[in-house]
């Protein structure tokens, strides 16, 4: 019964390469009661008949009760439905805005997809503004569509933002670490000085602090904390906090 979980369990935390295969042997005891288990294969794992194949290189991770995925380094973003991203408005044409989200196609954003927007009351969006929105349609055959309201019609933090502040790009792995519920990086950063932070799943991060210098410090800290262990990161943050301007 536990063969499937056992197969995965021994590889949790190990580096796997594309082409590695998990094949399962059904238990040979003929007691007739084969329990079916459900396993959710996350990104990087793909089912191929009776086997599960690895298609991205990275570390195998597990979340209770039955979710497994491959944690990999990547900077190129592929739009996926439901993800919240930061986009830059590139053009306005008629009823829709074209927004660049870092994928292969530009996403389209309708002017009615803002809170309180009607045909008479258009939102104040200019070319070059930053928007934070969610994907409603994002598959590989059509251009993706963004909206800035949730299913109830409320903005919920989405929409145009960022009069000041700095936008920069990081890898997708760092973005996921920042968005984790108990992110250590955010907790460590908070202790240094207050700042505003918007994180998009397409690898774009927007930061604003009181002065230009502080904004630049936060930007550089986030960019360098990508390749550091938590030990190194905490010593670095402590040094900055003591000598901070």
């Amino acid at each position: 019964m536990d063969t499937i979980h056992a197969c995965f369990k021994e590889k949790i935390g190990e580096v796997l390469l594309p082409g590695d295969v998990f094949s399962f042997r059904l238990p040979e005891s003929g007691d007739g009661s084969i329990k079916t288990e459900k396993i959710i294969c996350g990104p990087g794992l793909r089912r191929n008949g009776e086997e599960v194949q690895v298609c991205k290189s990275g570390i195998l991770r597990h979340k209770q009760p039955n979710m497994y995925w491959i944690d990999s380094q990547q900077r190129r973003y592929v739009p996926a439905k439901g993800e919240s991203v930061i986009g830059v408005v590139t053009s306005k044409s008629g009823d829709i805005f074209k927004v660049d989200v870092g994928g292969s196609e530009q996403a389209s954003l309708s002017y009615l997809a803002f809170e309180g927007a009607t045909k008479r009351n258009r939102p104040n969006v200019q070319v070059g503004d930053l928007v934070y929105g969610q994907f409603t349609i994002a598959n590989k055959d059509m251009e993706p569509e963004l909206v800035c309201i949730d299913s109830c019609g409320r903005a919920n933090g989405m929409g145009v933002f960022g009069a000041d502040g700095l936008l920069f790009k990081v890898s997708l792995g760092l973005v996921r670490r920042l968005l984790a519920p108990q992110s250590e990086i955010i907790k460590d950063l908070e202790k240094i000085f207050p700042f505003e932070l918007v994180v998009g799943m397409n690898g774009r991060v927007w930061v604003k602090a009181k002065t230009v210098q502080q904004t630049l410090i936060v930007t550089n800290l986030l960019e360098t904390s990508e390749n550091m262990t938590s030990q190194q990161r905490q010593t670095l943050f402590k040094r900055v906090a003591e000598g901070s301007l």
Partner: protein
Amino acid sequence: MRDTPLSNCERRFLLKAVEEKKRLDGRQTYDYRNIKITFGTDYGCCIVELGRTRVLCQVSCELVPPKDSRPTEGIMFFNLELSPMASPAFEPNRQSELLVMLNRQLERCLRNSKCIDTESLCVVSGEKVWQIRVDVHVLNHDGNLMDAASIAAISALSHFRRPDVAIQGRDITVFSPEERDPIPLSIYHMPICVSFAFFLQGSYLLVDPCEREERVKDGLLVIAMNKHREICSIQSSGGIMLLKDQVLRCSKIASVKVSEITELINKALENDRKIRKEGGKFGFAESMPKERITALKRDEAPVEMTDVKETASEINILRSVSSPVLVAMGTAQVGEGIVNSWGLDEDEEDEPQTEDTKTDEVMVISDSEEEEVVILNEEAQ
């Protein structure tokens, strides 16, 4: 592919930072990024890294007839290419303004300054001269391509060695590098370009702009100079109005920077020469640091070797592998070969069976269709 557009808030932030004299990576206004110069195994191949901007330059030479107007001079040919690898904004085979500007500036800096003695490239006057070709490829664009390209070009030219020639009457013999040592080019001086970016109608300037700073600049001033404080070329683009004392100030800054960079190039050339003479390893592979990506790095995992022997013998028993049969001296056979089942009927006619095989003659069992099957160690014990 299109390049990411610059958002309004980034533009505002960058201009505000310039006003407060702050740069994105913490440099001062007149600071250059880290310059790293590495040479390849061939003579004349050089990679320059200016921060994250990477540029590769390759110098090569060829014997050609000279130009009619200058029969006693060699020919220099410059070519700079922007590949899409450098930035998503570059499309292949597209003649953009940036490409034309970079090519023109590189030619002006190196050709018009007469830094290379072209008379020494002449082999037979009016018939054969050396054509030196300098190819610069941009590998990564993070701002300030002009400086990186000029540093790469002059370093590669100083590193390059052309083959030695001997002339007897009308016959020219070109020696290969093994026969005679190749000769370096005769270079009088090293012109290097220094770029200044101007912001907010010329009130603020930055040296060595990175890619985002370049996007919000108003104008660009490029000064090509050598370490003897001789200006080889000045070019101003962007249509900004510059005051006389601004240009003088820039040239003073440029002379300081150029002397530092020339020293760096000379040190790199000296290092490379030393390593080659001592016979050590040189080239790009040696200069790249190992173990770059550290976030997902794992320690080496030891492999369990204790029960390998038992496992191997188990497999042997399971599959019943036969032990090798010694057919004749120098030839052994493991297992029976598979019979050819393709049914080539004409080969199955009667072949004269020679019964008298000598014992010390080596039998050839292989089915290969080669005419001669060579068996190694024929005369061994």
